[in-house]
């Protein structure tokens, strides 16, 4: 199996930990490596302890690893809280003169700051680290220079100088730590994309044209991405007065024909709840992109959690159909973003896409999504009416005809009150029951278009891991790393509401079922138990704001 490496940069905010890590990733991708990044940062703008890690290999890769091969402490002391990530072979390059040695690994004092000042400015410390890493991992300096030129534009020259300084320093002082790795050969046209950007590309390729949001970590990346693209792709991107306004504005646009989505995290999602219910009864289709972080309340703003699943499924007062999709990778963030717009338009209901910080803010090597086209579901709208348009006609599928304002003779009320087929308010029991049942039928009609749970692994497996969302990455990576002949398979549930009854058949023959969730109360487990015959023999949860690492899952599985 191909060896997996991890390089980690750590230091205070404001010194380019993230941009250094991203540059390194881009260089590795340009060499043809597969990359999976992960960053941790506190909710502040300067200082603190920030890390950016790049896990890479020549083969397949599903998740970042815990074990670090090369660690940079950009200012003194940033390695101490990472001792558990070091092996006897880890090189810790730290900018400190007299350093207490770590119990495992080799600490080397590297005068990063002095070198950066010699180049011109401390801001290039990160690029010096990249140069150092490039030498130790036998990277091609020409490819590296080309990437730096692409990244830094007018500051390229200084950064190339910084890169070379790091390279030369490593050559002179650190060649004992040269790694054995052969950069893959061949053209690599993949890009470094995080889950939020992938979501944004899915929105664009899926024909999205109205996105509103109020900044909230970790969903803000999607807002920034789409705002920057609004002119090129003719999007409406609206930063509204609050999340209630965000959702209401989007619902107005959707009523008027937009393919609309809103993005937020748990706190903002709480404010949008009345709109979800309102979309349910008015049958205005729109998408809610919920990127979770640990709550309750302000919680851990920059960390990860799957703690909002039940809240998302149960969001909005009253009873109405909704669809909740959970992408399990950055690529699926792209796919489900486009699909959610289709489902919202075709079935005229709220569609939630639940992601989390780990998925949304971790970057991976992916095909160029700006070139990835998707075919939207075709949705018909009424061309003309006779003045008595039944917007809420009782149909066998539950899906009623849609008309957009501007269509002659199809005037109607999108009504938040219970209503009759025309949209006029109604309170009689017959109409109430008929409309509730009509709306509910849409879930059955939508079913063929909902992503199915995916089973990974050998049919001979006797132990089934069940997971959803971002946890799929570490689970699949753990399975990949387990010794051949291991007894595990994994089921990744991708539509978390409504629950596909077929999951019962997919799971029932395993003597052991283990659910793995990044929350405290095993929320998908609760949902599955409530919907089908489902009896896990073991539940593994983690709720400290950090994702699972494949290494810790391997320990659990062996």
């Amino acid at each position, binding site marked *: 199996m191909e060896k997996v490496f991890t390089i980690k940069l750590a230091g205070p905010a404001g010194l380019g930990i993230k941009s250094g890590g991203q540059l390194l990733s881009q260089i590795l991708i340009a060499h043809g490596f597969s990359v999976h990044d992960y960053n941790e940062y506190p909710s502040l703008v300067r200082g603190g302890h920030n890390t950016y890690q790049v896990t890479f290999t020549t083969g397949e890769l599903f998740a970042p690893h815990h074990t670090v091969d090369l660690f940079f402490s950009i200012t003194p002391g940033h390695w101490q809280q990472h001792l558990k990530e070091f092996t006897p072979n880890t090189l810790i390059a730290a900018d400190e003169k007299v350093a207490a040695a770590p119990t495992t690994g080799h600490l080397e004092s590297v005068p990063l700051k002095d070198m950066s000042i010699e180049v011109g400015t401390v801001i290039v410390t990160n690029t010096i680290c990249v140069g150092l890493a490039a030498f130790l991992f036998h990277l091609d300096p020409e490819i590296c220079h080309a990437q730096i030129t692409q990244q830094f534009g007018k500051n390229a020259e200084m950064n190339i100088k910084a890169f070379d300084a790091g390279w030369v320093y490593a050559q002179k002082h650190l060649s004992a730590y040269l790694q054995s790795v052969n950069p893959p050969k061949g053209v690599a046209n993949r890009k470094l994309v995080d889950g939020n950007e992938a979501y944004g590309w899915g929105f664009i390729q899926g024909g999205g*044209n109205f996105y509103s949001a109020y900044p909230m970590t970790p969903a803000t990346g999607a807002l920034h991405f789409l705002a920057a693209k609004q002119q090129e792709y003719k999007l409406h991107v609206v930063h509204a007065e609050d999340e209630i*306004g965000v959702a*209401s*504005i989007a619902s*107005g646009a959707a009523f008027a024909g*937009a393919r609309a989505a809103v993005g937020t995290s748990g706190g903002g999602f709480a404010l949008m709840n*009345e709109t979800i219910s309102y979309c349910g009864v008015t049958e205005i289709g729109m998408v809610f992109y919920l990127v979770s972080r640990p709550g309750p309340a302000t919680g851990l703003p920059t960390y990860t959690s799957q703690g909002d699943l039940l809240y998302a499924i149960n969001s909005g007062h009253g009873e109405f159909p909704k669809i909740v999709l959970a992408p399990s990778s950055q690529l699926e963030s792209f796919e489900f973003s486009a699909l959610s717009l289709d489902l919202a338009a075709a079935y005229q209901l709220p569609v939630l896409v639940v992601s989390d910080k780990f998925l949304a803010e971790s970057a991976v090597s992916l095909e160029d999504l700006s070139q990835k086209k998707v075919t939207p579901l075709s949705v018909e709208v009424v061309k003309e009416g006779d003045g008595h348009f039944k917007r809420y006609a009782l149909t066998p599928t539950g899906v009623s005809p849609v008309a957009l304002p501007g269509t002659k003779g199809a005037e109607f009320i999108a009504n938040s009150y219970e209503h009759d087929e025309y949209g006029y308010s109604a309170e009689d029991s017959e109409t109430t029951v008929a409309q509730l049942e009509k709306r509910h039928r849409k879930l059955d009609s939508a079913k063929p278009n909902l992503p199915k749970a995916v089973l990974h692994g050998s049919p001979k497996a006797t132990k089934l891991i069940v997971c959803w969302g971002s946890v799929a990455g570490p689970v699949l990576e753990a399975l990949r790393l387990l010794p051949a002949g291991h007894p595990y398979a994994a089921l990744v549930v991708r539509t978390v509401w409504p629950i596909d009854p077929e999951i019962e058949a997919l799971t029932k023959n395993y003597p052991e079922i283990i659910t793995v969730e990044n929350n405290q109360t095993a929320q998908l487990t609760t949902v599955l138990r409530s919907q089908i015959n489902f009896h896990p023999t073991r539940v593994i949860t983690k709720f400290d704001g950090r994702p699972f690492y494949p290494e810790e899952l391997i320990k659990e599985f062996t």
Partner: protein
Amino acid sequence: MTTIAELRTPHAPTWCPGCDDFLLLAGLQQALAASAIPTEKTVIVYDIGCAGNMADFVHTYAVHSLHGRSIAVAMGIKLFRPDLTVIVIGGDGGIYGEGLNHLVAAARANSDIKVFVSNNYLYSLTTGQTSPTTPKGAKTKSTPLGVTNEPLVASRFIPAINDQVWVQKVSAKNIAELNGEIKEALNHQGFALLDVDENCVSFGKQLR
């Protein structure tokens, strides 16, 4: 040209006899009929309240939204479809209370929507509690000891947010003036708000 008959629906108004909302409805239908705007190009977004209940009585494209959210919904419609005439009908509770943040946002943006506020100084659909415009000292069902807050006066605070927007106050009782102001609001390019001074015949006695 649209006739008033074409603007009617099969549903007769359900307001209390003598409610001033009848006057607002009549004025709006007249103004729409007199205008060159076709019904299919008109979207009226209704708030929740007695005033918002007008939704069932006017035949245009419409959204009967949520309490307080009518302005935000209307802004979304207008942003995506500038070709449409977008009108808001709401009460003082919905527009100046529950949805005040959206009113401020719309005024700041000078969003090209026309807002008609049926200002009866009360939450009437919920049977007569204090609203943001209730005069100081008035005793209502939710303030039996008398209102202690200063009332919000739209014609004073909205121009302070953006002096480019159109804001007028008119009494529903003065029908000619009311109808004239409705037309003017509809013709205005940019954000327009007409505060219609109304009396709630069922719960307004508390205020006198």
